[in-house]
């Protein structure tokens, strides 16, 4: 029996939900929560593969009168969400049971809270899958806001002062920021409605057809509103202040998802909405370029002064998201190709680094660079994987990050944006400096205390996702042609200057 597109897309989006409910109901069970979570996150991963195949064959798949639509661009994000979600759930199993949470609240309450954690985790996954599958401009806003709501309690999960402070900032700043993009979505919907005779004026595919008839001032206004709204979600500077706190204070499996895919949801929404304007109004891309450069530099400079490993990685994300936005802002085929490549290399490198830090926290309950040193002797696998992630982030060959950054640099050169090329190279040097310095101090530096001697490798369920991400970072650096069909199709789909 052939599964219809509608069934396939619905299964993809909704499959984590019954498991989320089951985990919530069975939250007192000591044995069922984790297996249900792993199955609930594996199913979307398994479905995303035939979805990708179908998108590659047919160009796009849609359902319910194009309300849900998956094209090559959505497919990249779907694969990223389901892949990171699945491995983050495996990582979480042992990691979440080790944390001082149990010592603080007692085993019974911790057990129930873990049930809520996994339930929200799966719900969060579902909202992200929904975000990248919708073709409706206002439902995109609803889904993006739903990802914030679903993850707010996950950010505050440890329920101590720092986690609550981070959760408060996260929810307030993101909700306020994203509300601006609601205005943008409504403005575009209202402006395009009179020109759309057949079909819904809410659908991106219909709006695109009439975008050239919308006055330039309305386009400009919407672009500003989308930049403020979805730019906040993407963590682009200067809309980023929620990001370091949330990444640092959330449990590490959630940091993995936030850094690997959730912030990229904001970029996805920006790309979808800017994609409407760019063919007719290329000037809009310049706004993105300015924010991108500011993010790249500010993120890198602030990462250099961090002593907390998770905050360092968080600021590094601001910088790396800037790279992706830069590629989109350059607006050429190669710019888009580099941006999508950078997106995938970031989806691999940043969760990898967060998981390595998680392994250190699991082993030593430390994450401050100044308190660590000489850990490499006791955790050689974690060290090797951390260096792979750090080198990829810095653009060192033969890793995925090297080729993605090289593509971006060539794109800027082709576009004769020499100033941008210089700033990109400068940011790469800064990245190399802070990433390698952190890796060197933590793994090779002098042992700061006797306590470090007790460090040992994390268990296999923690190391396994780390190894998978490391191997993929290497493979995609050596065989970039593996990604070519998907990245090429997504780049050709993007609007060119």
């Amino acid at each position: 029996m052939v599964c219809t597109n509608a069934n396939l897309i619905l299964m993809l989006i909704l499959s984590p939900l019954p498991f989320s409910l089951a985990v919530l109901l069975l939250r007192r069970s000591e044995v069922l929560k984790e297996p249900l979570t792993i199955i609930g996150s594996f199913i979307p991963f398994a479905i995303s593969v035939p979805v990708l195949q179908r998108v590659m064959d047919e160009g796009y798949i849609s359902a319910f009168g194009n309300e849900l639509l998956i094209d090559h661009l959505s497919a990249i994000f779907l694969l990223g969400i389901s892949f990171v979600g699945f491995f983050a759930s495996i990582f979480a199993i042992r990691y979440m049971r080790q944390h001082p949470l149990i010592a603080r609240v007692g085993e019974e309450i911790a057990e129930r809270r873990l049930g809520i954690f996994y339930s929200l985790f799966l719900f969060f996954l579902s909202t992200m899958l929904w975000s990248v599958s919708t073709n409706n401009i206002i439902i995109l806003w609803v889904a993006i806001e739903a990802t914030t709501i679903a993850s707010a309690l996950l950010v505050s999960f440890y329920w101590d002062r720092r986690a609550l402070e981070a959760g408060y900032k996260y929810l307030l700043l993101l909700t306020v920021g994203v509300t601006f993009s609601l205005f943008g979505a409504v403005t575009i919907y209202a402006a395009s409605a009179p020109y759309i005779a057949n079909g819904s004026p809410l659908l991106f595919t219909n709006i695109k057809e009439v975008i050239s008839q919308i006055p330039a001032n309305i386009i400009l206004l919407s672009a500003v509103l989308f930049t403020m709204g979805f730019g906040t979600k993407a963590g682009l500077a200067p809309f980023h202040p929620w990001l370091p706190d949330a990444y640092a204070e959330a449990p590490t499996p959630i940091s993995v998802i936030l850094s690997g895919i959730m912030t990229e949801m904001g970029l996805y929404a920006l790309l979808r909405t800017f994609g409407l304007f760019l063919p007719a109004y290329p000037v809009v891309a310049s706004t993105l370029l300015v924010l991108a450069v500011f993010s790249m530099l500010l993120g890198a400079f602030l990462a250099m002064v961090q002593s907390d490993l998770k905050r360092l990685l968080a600021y590094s994300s601001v910088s790396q998201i800037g790279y992706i936005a830069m590629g989109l802002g350059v607006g050429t085929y190669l710019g888009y190709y580099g941006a999508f490549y950078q997106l995938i290399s970031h989806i691999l490198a940043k969760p990898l680094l967060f998981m390595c830090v998680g392994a250190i926290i699991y082993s030593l309950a430390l994450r401050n660079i100044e308190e660590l040193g000489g850990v490499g002797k006791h955790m050689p696998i974690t060290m090797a994987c951390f260096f792979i992630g750090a080198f990829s982030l810095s653009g060192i060959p033969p890793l995925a990050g090297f080729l993605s950054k090289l593509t971006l640099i060539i794109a800027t050169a082709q576009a004769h944006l020499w100033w941008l090329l210089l700033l990109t190279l400068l940011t790469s040097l800064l990245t190399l400096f802070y990433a390698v310095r952190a890796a060197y101090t933590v793994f090779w530096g002098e042992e700061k205390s006797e306590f470090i001697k007790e460090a040992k490798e994390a268990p296999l369920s923690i190391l396994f996702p780390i190894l998978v991400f490391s191997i993929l970072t290497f493979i995609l650096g050596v065989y970039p042609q593996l990604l070519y069909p998907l990245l090429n199709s997504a780049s050709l789909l993007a609007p060119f200057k």
Partner: protein
Amino acid sequence: MALIITSFGAVVTRNLRYATYIYAIQALLLTTVISLFATASPTLFLWAAVAFITKFIIITWLLLSFIKGMPEYEIKAIIGFAPSVIIVTLIVIVVFEITHKYVHFLAPTTLATEEPYRTNVAVSLIVFTLGLYGILTRRDAFKTAIGLCLLENGAHLSLVSLAPGLKETVIIGIVTDVVLGVYLLLFIIRGLREVAGTTDTYQLTELHW
């Protein structure tokens, strides 16, 4: 005008219970305004019903439940009453002038450039801006939540002029997000109060650069 006065009142009133009551009055006014517009666009009756249930009943109930056991007055704000009067008056004049003078630049439809829709856009932007003002100038986290509610009311009101024909599913999606967002924000603020012993955002200094 009543919507602007209630926004100002909800932001500057230091007594938390009274501030919540003022917010509730604004939610009722909002429902009434949408109902009046619904006589021209009947789909807006659903908007009015949804606004009544979510903003007047649910959110007011959430706010009132939250302040049980809280001190009667908010923590002193960054900007006091007198300067607030001046700033808010300036905000009202500037936003009103801009939306009237440059309405053709801002309004995406012809309908939104005509009265009373044009004034409605101006009022909704003022309510939105006052919500933002509340978030930025109040030290008490509870009052920032009220600021968020005002900001959402402004967004809700603007949709009446900009997109009166919006589909029901979309409307329900938007308000569900708003209600859940406010609930979770209050839940986290309650956690902060229990753990840190304060709702003073000036004391949330554990995390910085």
